[in-house]
Each structure stands twice: as C-alpha cells, then as structure tokens.
C-alpha cells in the first residue's frame, strides 16, 4: 500500500512533467488543464502515502531523506494548487511539476523503511519547526519556478521574439507579483523555522546556535531572501533582478536541503 501509492504518485507527476515539457517546447493548446488534472491524481496518491506513513510511524513523515523530499514535494504541490486556484496561470504547472517530480525521484532513491522516530526528535517542537521550514521552502521553490517564467518572458519581450512560448506565458506584472507574494509568504516562515529551531536546540542540546552546517546554510538562505525583500522595498529591485535573486535563493535552499545532508557532517543528518 505504501509503495503502491508512492509509485502511483511518482508516475502521475512524471506524466505531468512530460506533458509540461511538451507544453513548453511545442505549440499546443489546452495542455494546462490536463497537467492540473494529472497533478491532482498524483496528489491524491501522494497524500494517501503520507497518511499511511503517518499511521505506520506515528509521526509526521518527514524524518530521513526519503520522507523529507517527499514531504517537500507535497508542500509544493499544495501551494501550487492554491496559486492555480487564485491566479489561473495555466502554464505554471509546466514549470512547477518538474521540480516536484525531481524531488520525488530523489526521494525514491533513499531508503524508504519507516523507522521509529529517534528520541531527540520526539519533541513538541518537531512538528512546528518542520511545518514552518517545509512550507517556507516550498514557497521558495515555486517562487524560483515563477522567477524562471519571468526571466523567459522578459527575455522574449526584450529580444522581441513574440511567438511560441511568449504567447502562452502570462504578463510580467503578474509573474513578478506572484514571485513577490511567495517570498513574503516564505520569508516569515523561514524566520519562524529558524527561531523555533533555535529554541528547540536550546532545550535539546543546551545551546541556541552551534554553527552547525544546516544552521549556517539556513542563515545564508535567510540572508539572501532578506536581501531580496530589502532591495525590492528600498531600491525598487523588482522584475528581472528579483527573479534572478529568487532563483539564487532557491539554489541555497536546495543546498541546505540536500548538500548539507549528503556532503557535510551535520547534527541535522537525520532529516
């Protein structure tokens, strides 16, 4: 049941990714709806998988790289649905679902056993810290996807290449607005994740801040997004610059998420 639901979710996300790529690279009308429907199917199985894991493990299924990647992807899809409902951009799915699929694919390469939660994680802080962190990261992921859409559209407008994908991408202002909204949504969440993390660290390890690689890279990420917001408000860094920065910010998120766990030794190696 657990494996089946995961595989089905993976397959649906894969299908959505392929159709998304077709929509981006080929002239075609009306694929956005199909992507959305397939993504909903994937999301249903994905949610079922998380529920199964929750009952089997007895905790929010986010410990270990397999669960963490999967949960990360799940948060992205959830926020994507909300944005699609709110803004109806259509082609956005073609840019977001590939991110989801890659996360799920990487999740599938990690050991999938449901292990009991290690004692150090069995804390009141666990759920709060995790939800803040993942919701924040997920909105940064989508901000990066929307940022990429902005850069493409901006390039087409400047270079005056006005057929094909240009026609299917929405206007610059809405892309910039969504990008900004996502960062203003994600930034406080990341801030709260860091604060709750520090409080938790104090109660678990006896110190708020230990310059652990995960902490350091989270701080780097936080600084990047703080800079994005500061420059926009203070200097009018909107549009292209904001889009580029949001992509850089997401690279930092990815490194914090994967790089630190896989390359550096970290106290956070359990998640």
């Amino acid at each position, binding site marked *: 049941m657990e494996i089946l639901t995961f595989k089905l979710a993976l397959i649906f996300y894969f299908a959505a990714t392929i159709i998304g790529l077709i929509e981006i690279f080929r002239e075609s009308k009306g694929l956005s709806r199909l992507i959305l429907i397939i993504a909903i199917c994937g999301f249903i199985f994905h949610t079922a998988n998380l529920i199964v894991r929750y009952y089997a493990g007895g905790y929010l299924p986010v410990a270990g790289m397999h669960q963490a990647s999967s949960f990360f992807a799940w948060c992205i899809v959830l926020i994507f649905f909300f944005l699609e409902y709110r803004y109806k951009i259509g082609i956005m799915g073609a840019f977001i679902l590939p991110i989801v699929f890659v996360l799920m694919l990487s999740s599938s390469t990690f050991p999938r056993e449901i292990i009991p939660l290690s004692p150090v994680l069995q804390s009141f802080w666990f759920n709060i810290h995790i939800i803040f962190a993942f919701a924040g990261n997920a909105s940064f992921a989508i901000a990066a996807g929307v940022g990429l859409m902005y850069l493409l559209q901006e390039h087409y407008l*400047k270079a005056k290449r*006005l057929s094909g994908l240009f026609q299917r991408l929405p*206007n610059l*202002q809405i892309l910039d607005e969504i990008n900004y909204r996502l960062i203003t949504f994600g930034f406080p969440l990341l801030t709260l994740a860091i604060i709750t993390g520090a409080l938790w660290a104090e109660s678990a390890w006896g110190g708020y801040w230990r310059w652990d690689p995960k902490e350091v890279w989270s701080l780097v990420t936080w600084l990047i997004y703080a800079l994005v917001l500061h420059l926009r408000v203070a200097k*009018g*860094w*909107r549009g292209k610059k904001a889009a580029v920065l949001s992509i850089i910010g997401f690279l930092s998120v990815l490194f914090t998420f994967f790089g630190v766990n896989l390359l550096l030794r970290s106290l956070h190696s359990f998640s």
Partner: protein
Amino acid sequence: MTILVLGLNHKTANVNVRERLAFNGQKLDEGITKLKALPEISEVAVLSTCNRVEIYALAKDASNSLDSIKNFLSEFHSIKRDDFDKALYFFSGLDSVRHIFRVASSLDSMIVGEPQVLGQIKEAFDFALNKKTTGIILNRLMKNAISAAKRVRTETRIAENAVSISFAAVELAKKIFKELSGKSFMLLGAGEMAELAARHLLNNGVTDVKVANRTYERGCELARDFNGRAVRFEDFHKELVNTDIVICSTGAPDYVLKKEQMQKIMKERRYKPVFLIDISVPRNIDPDVNSIDNAYLYNIDDLQEVVDTNILERKKEAEKAEKIIDEEVGKFEKWMASLDSVPTIVALREKAEEIKNEELEKFRNKYPDFDAEKMKAIEHVATAIINKLIHPPMAALKENSADRDELIAVIKKLYGINGDDTWERKNGE
C-alpha cells in the same frame, strides 16, 4: 437542384470592377428581387462588401443559371460582360458550400481571421430572409456557415493575434502589465497612427491620459479629445516618472529621449515597468533605452514584425481551419442527402391517404344509411391499417443508409409514385 456561387473578390478584381458590381442599399433591394424573379433560380442571397460581391443561389441547372445571372449583372449594373467576366469565379454543388463556409470563417479574406465578414454574411442572409428570397436550403446553409465559422474561431487560434500595428501595441502592453485599467499613458507628439493606438489603449481601460505636443495648443486640443490633460513638451521628462505607457510620434529629427535621461527616470520611478512605443521615423527614442531594466521599447519596425509574424501564424492556423470546414461540408452534404427522401416520404403518405379515402367513399356509397358511429370506427381501422403498412418503408427512407438512392427508386416503383417534383413544387411557391 444545385447550390451555386458566382462572385468576385479582392483577389480576382480590382476596386474599379468591385465598386461597379456592388449592391449598395437600394440596389441590393432591387437586385435581389430581380434575381429571385429569374426563372432558373428558386432561392437567392447576395453578399456585397468592399472586398467582395457574391451571389448565392439555388438553381435547377448550373450552367443555364450562370449565364442568366451574368446577363442580369451586366444589365443591372450597366457594365459590359467582357469587363467583369474574367474577374468572376463560379462554384456549384459542394464546392459552393465549401466556398461559403470559407468566406464566413474568414479564410478567404484579405486579412485571414478578421471578424467582420461573419457579421456581413449574417446581414446578407437576414436581408434575404426578410425579402423572402431564400428557402429551406439557403437558410440551412447560412445556419451551417455561421456554426462552421464559430467552430473555426473557437477551435483554432486564427483570430487570436493582432494584425494591425495599433492592436499589436495594445497586445504587447497586456504582456507587460496585468491590466491596463488604471495605467497612465502619455502621447508624445501626434499623428494618425499614434492617435489610433491611443484610442485602442483608452478602449482597454487606460485612465490617466497626458498629451505632450510641441505646439501646446494642439496638445490641448488632443487632450480634450482623449479626455486627458495637456503637458508642456519641455516637461515631458518629468511626467515620464509617473507614466506607464508612452506612444511617441514627434517630427523631431533626432532623439528626444536619451538613454541617460531614461536611466534617471527609471531610478526615480523605482524601476516600475514602462512600455515605450516609438512610431516616429526617424526614431525619437534612443534604441539603447531598451537595454534598461524594466523599460521596453518598441519601434515601428518591431511592431510591423509582430504583425507580420502574426499573419504567418494565422496562415498556419488556417490549415487547421480547413479541416474543420471539410467536416462541416460533410455534415451539410448529409443533410442535403436526407432531403432527397422527403418528397418520396410525402408522396408515399399521400398515396396511402388517397387509397384509404377512395375505398371509404366506395363503402359509403354502397351503404348510404350506415350507422355514423360505426362509420367512424371503420375509418379508424382503415387509418390504422395504412399506417402499419407504410410504416416500414417510411422508416427505411428516414434512415441514412448507403443504398438510400436505390431504396427511393424501388419504393417509387412499388407504390407507383411518379416524378420527384413534389418538393420542388412546394418550395417554388
């Protein structure tokens, strides 16, 4: 019976010929009545626009009616047949159906995909309908032409992209800004094309309008026209800080807006996007302005290129549209075919009624004082018998089977029904 189209358009005739053959106002009224009066023609409608004149008709015989329509045209418009004969095209049968569908779907237009022609076709047929010059065939044809055109419109992107410079400008603005309402707009200079583009922007909800003209009085005049306000030309740089869309068309011999100036303006407007359209020749805005972040500069050639690619795009979509037209022609063909059985069905029913009435009459003559109540019952029985007897052949006729033509012939022979003019006679009345 065949549908036929005789006409000329912008491709086959120059405006000299087109205007001489046009049916305007009173002429249409008169012309369509005279056409209907021609003995060869049973239904007729006339489309007359600035790009085409076409006569749609239902006629017994294509070549005869062709000749008499041409004679009519020559006489009616007092123009020698030789003067317009070469410009005419002629279709009959399904080719004419296809032609009408293509015209309605704007595939035959000068600018493929333009929306006006469908309205003109509707008007032409409505006029004919009011004058009672059309019947079931042409009315059905018009209905199908309209639905074919609508399918083409919704299922292809034939009408999606702007094919005029001023529309292209509006379309581009909509790719930069979320909505145009509430955006502020400045017209720099004047000129026909600039004013047209300005009107399109206003129609799309641009609210704050400023006009800067070298001659302040002219600027005031234009500003009144656009419901905006005039700005002194020397001040336009300052105004740019609060302007989102600019159309520039001054007669200046060189740049009135340089990159350095625009950079300063952008900084002051905190890099809020600005869309600059420079349609002046020589150019009035430094082309390097386009390299500034969030400033989008398009000149007249850029816009023309947009228009050209859009026209190409429409041609690609036109291929998809042709397939839809094929399907719709097929549907109409089926409907026409189903019509063939109608006269036979009617004749068969009439024949049966005739037999029934004849026999009942004989019975009444034989028993003049038969109980009226019982007579009614006998009549009912007779009706029931003939209905049951003719039901199977009727059902077979209504069915769309492949061998229906044969079936029609066989049924006619078996029941002794002669001729197939029943329906024509009715329609000709």
